[in-house]
């Protein structure tokens, strides 16, 4: 049961989070209506690879690590996610299953938006959908750029 105070807090968090800041008030209210607060202790899984992508997390506190796990090898930490960033984009594209594991490195707090409801909201209101997808595209572009930069290994031995 979400109280009015919790709803206000979520609306406030969405209004100030870099991903959603600047959205129209009606859009913020719509997002808040399908969101709830979540918290994870250090070491807890926030997302597991291949699980249904049922949440879109806006991180408000703590650090998380995006990892690749495979049997017989140590986890490979690909990136860290910090307050002001988001976790999870698999919810936006079929088959809506998580691509990477994400673990809380510190106690992590998020505003978690229900992914099924969010897709429906974007379908219902294309203006909201446009703004959400444009912002998500910026997140994806930044991550792709960063990944390509890391592939170049600029700090490695001269080639």
């Amino acid at each position: 049961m979400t109280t009015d105070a919790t709803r206000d807090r979520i609306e406030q968090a969405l209004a100030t989070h870099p991903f959603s800041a600047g959205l129209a008030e009606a859009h913020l209210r719509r997002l808040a209506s399908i969101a709830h607060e979540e918290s994870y202790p250090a070491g807890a899984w926030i997302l597991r690879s291949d699980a249904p992508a049922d949440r879109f997390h806006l991180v408000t506190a703590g650090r998380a690590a995006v990892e690749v796990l495979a049997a017989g090898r140590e986890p490979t930490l690909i990136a860290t996610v910090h307050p002001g960033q988001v976790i999870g984009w698999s919810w936006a594209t079929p088959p809506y299953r998580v691509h990477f594991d994400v673990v809380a490195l510190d106690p992590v707090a998020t505003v978690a938006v229900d992914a099924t409801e969010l897709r429906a909201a974007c379908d219902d209101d294309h203006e909201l959908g446009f703004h959400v997808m444009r912002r998500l595209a910026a997140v994806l572009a930044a991550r792709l750029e960063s990944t390509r930069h890391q592939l170049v290994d600029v700090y490695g031995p001269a080639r």
Partner: protein
Amino acid sequence: MAPVPYRVVTRVVDGSDVVTIGLVPAGADAVGVPAPGQFLMVWVNGVGEIPISVSGIGADGLVELTVRRVGMTSEAIVGSEVGDVLGARGPYGTAWPIEEADGRDIVVVAGGLGVAPLRLAIEALVARRRDPHRVHVVIGARRPDQLLYADTYERWRAAGAQVVTTVDAADRDWTGAVGTATELLGRHDLRGDVAFVCGPELMMVWTARALLRTGMAADRIHVSLERNMHCGIAHCGRCQLGPLLLCRDGAVVSWDRVAPLMAVPGR
């Protein structure tokens, strides 16, 4: 033009292939006091001479040089022991425009060994900082154990600088970020009006572009470029980059002057 003899008085190993040596004049002669960002031509008898940015200065004419083993001369310098004598001439080149940060927020971005030419600048910026103006220092490396001068970050923080670190790879024990410096520059709490950037050239190009995206003016972004500096006095032309001779016009250059040159492959 003749090198001045300097004696190695300290030698600190920083990772597997990086060493910081402290040198003092071996006789009555000494090079001038280097400004932050300037470099010395360092000579090893019978081996060669290379440019090295000064990473620290101290009493009695002490200069510190942080060197990575990449070629014969740098290998000889890295391998030098306390008591050995090297030659030095200079200082040469342009300095970081420290005074440009007065009354402004500054972002210092250092990657890999690029922290070395910035260390004196960071010390000066921290000492000159006045509220509400901020000094942000973003330091990138391949792995946590390759972050240079890691034991000085807390002192810089205590003096009011925001110091954040990011590496390309780490395990869960790492308390900084994993990713790139350019990603961090997107954060609102790391915005500035002026930037000093030093590191591998691609990293500087990406960083300058990321800073431009934050609205920073190109002439407020300063980078430190290296080419094959040889004479140090703009005579031989080995360090030419377009119209610039980097031993004289650099190593520290503003981005508005070099951006068009950096877009030409092979330069």
